């Protein structure tokens, strides 16, 4: 059985919890996606850009020095940080923006937190000649000014969002409000495996190229797959082709921020409970009255109170395990990977690396652990300098 079902549910998670105005647009999108996911020319076009524009396949690199230092399992890095624009996000925006083009929608909108999805959307819309507006929480606009400027250079408009907590969740609210208003002309390019059906399925499918390549490149079965989870798109992309192979252990790493007990974290699957936000029933950080509560992570890309519904399903069925890593553990890993392998990871990806550092020494040398290095750390240099107390 392939999931989601026709109504967009993974078990009891997912669905379409949106205002009536959006329902016809979701049906239209669903139909278009079903059609083009089987269309040979569309698939060819995706493969063309994956190879010649994004630079796929990305290497699966054996981190020998790191593995030797730790003295346990072999650690392999899936180098999504080498994708054009510096993160896995572009795998998805390539698919969605091409789909928008086929659907005849000339205006694309997106939400962004750290700015990576915004940059990836701005990049594809520049390439395809579409107009693009990106909603970004006002807090994030200030925290990630470099990415704001990148989007502008790429010809996109960045709209600061002043409502609520002024972060990613509010950017998503504002993008949904725009979509409700401009529904007939606009394509909403969601950046994660979150939101109403068909987004969690569609974004997963566009990201599944990560797992498919890994399978081919590794030759033989990996023992563990490790990826960070905010909304969860890079993790879902790596996991998806392996979900049916029960011998492969799947581990999602959430952001524990200052520690789960501190209350200042973004570990939705570890510490939240199911609810409805942004169109789907999934794990959610909420208070007893069902109000969404603010999250914290040093990594802006993981700082989100929801999570993709398929992750909730993988948790419930125990097919995947979800753990959490604190800001401090992630920043230690950020430094260790930089110094031992010459690779500066995105702070998001450093969470996955941190868990691998913890796991690998406990395993025998014959085991193989694949870590999704979902993005590079250039965008985080300012944050890292602050954290390590360095003045630039």
């Amino acid at each position: 059985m392939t999931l989601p079902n026709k109504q967009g549910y993974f078990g009891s998670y997912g669905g379409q919890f949106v205002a009536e105005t959006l329902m016809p647009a979701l049906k239209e999108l669903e139909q278009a996606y079903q059609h083009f996911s089987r269309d040979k020319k569309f698939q060819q076009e995706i493969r063309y850009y994956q190879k010649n524009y994004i630079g796929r396949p990305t290497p699966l690199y054996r981190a020998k020095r790191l593995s030797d230092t730790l003295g346990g399992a072999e650690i392999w890095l899936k180098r999504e940080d080498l994708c054009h624009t510096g993160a896995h996000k572009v795998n998805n925006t390539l698919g969605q923006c091409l789909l928008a083009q086929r659907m005849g929608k000339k205006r694309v909108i997106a939400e962004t937190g750290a700015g990576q999805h915004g940059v990836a959307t701005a990049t594809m819309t520049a390439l395809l000649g579409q107009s693009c507006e990106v909603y970004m929480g006002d807090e994030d606009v200030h925290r990630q000014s470099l990415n704001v400027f990148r989007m502008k250079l790429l010809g996109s408009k960045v709209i600061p969002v002043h409502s609520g907590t002024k972060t990613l969740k509010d950017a998503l609210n504002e993008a949904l409000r725009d979509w409700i208003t401009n529904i007939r002309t606009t394509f909403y390019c969601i950046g994660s495996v979150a939101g109403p059906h068909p987004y969690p399925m569609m974004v997963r499918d566009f990201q599944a190229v990560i797992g498919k390549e890994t399978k081919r490149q590794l030759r033989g079965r990996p023992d563990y797959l490790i990826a960070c989870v905010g909304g969860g798109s890079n993790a879902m992309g790596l996991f998806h082709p392996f979900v049916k192979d029960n011998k492969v252990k799947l581990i999602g790493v959430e952001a524990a921020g200052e520690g789960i007990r501190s209350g200042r974290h973004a570990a939705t699957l570890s510490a939240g409970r199911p609810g409805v936000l942004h169109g789907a029933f999934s794990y959610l950080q909420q208070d007893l009255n069902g109000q969404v509560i603010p999250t914290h992570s040093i990594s802006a890309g993981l700082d989100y109170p929801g999570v993709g519904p398929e992750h909730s399903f993988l948790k419930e069925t125990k097919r995947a395990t979800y753990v959490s890593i604190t800001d401090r553990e992630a920043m230690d890993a950020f430094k260790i990977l930089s110094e031992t392998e010459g690779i500066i990871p995105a702070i998001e990806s450093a969470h996955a690396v941190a868990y691998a550092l913890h796991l690998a020494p406990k395993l025998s040398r014959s085991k193989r652990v694949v870590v999704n290095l979902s993005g590079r750390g250039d965008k985080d240099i300012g944050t890292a300098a602050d954290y390590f107390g360095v003045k630039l």
Partner: protein
Amino acid sequence: MTSKITQLFATLKKEQRKALIPFITAGDPDLATTKRLIQALANAGADLIELGVPFSDPMADGPVIQRADERALAHGTTLRKILKLVKDVRSQVSTPILLMGYYNPILAYGLKSYARDARQAGVDATLVVDLPPEAAGPLNRELRRVGIDLIFLLTPTSDEARIRLVSRQARGFVYFVSMTGVTGGALQGAKEIRRKIREIRRHTSLPVAIGFGISHPQQARKMAELADGVVVGSALVRALEISGKPVKAAGDFLAKFSKVLRKNQG
């Protein structure tokens, strides 16, 4: 069992009147004021009162109602406290009350408990913005059991199939959203609205109320000609926001609408 809302629209039809439906956010600026606002609105001619249940992420609302929700939540407003308020106010006000909000606070409350407590408090209807008919089954079952109407939205983008789908589940009345947009947007042409409402009426005998974008009495009069009722939300919430005396402001504001609607249909 005929619901109070069904009775209301039947009576209005006999009197050849249209329902005037004001919306305020419960707990904005605080629940004590909301109680007095409900009384003021009832006295000023409200036929049905819509109480917004504030939510941290009101994705279908414009800036005015977003701010109202933020103020209400900042003062600790919860669904439980709102139900208690409705219960309190019931001894003085018999106007039907509709709670309007988002799904998660009701889910967190528990669907069964919500239905039971809302009934006991004297809530007549519930509208959940992010609960389209495809997802409404579980809540609708609980509400039907206790005789609370679940109100659904239809919009300019709803095609015939969706109108039929909504008609099969809706009770009380159908809430027609005048435009593709969030609350507080600008009202669009009457022609398209007239056409869509005609289409809706082909599939349901339920009364139709129009909301979103109605901010002036003259607009309300125009929209009332097309439907069985009009909802005034953001404009009222805005009037309360800028007024130092919200209770008086609410009464004055609504009286103007009431006067126009009654004069028109004499």
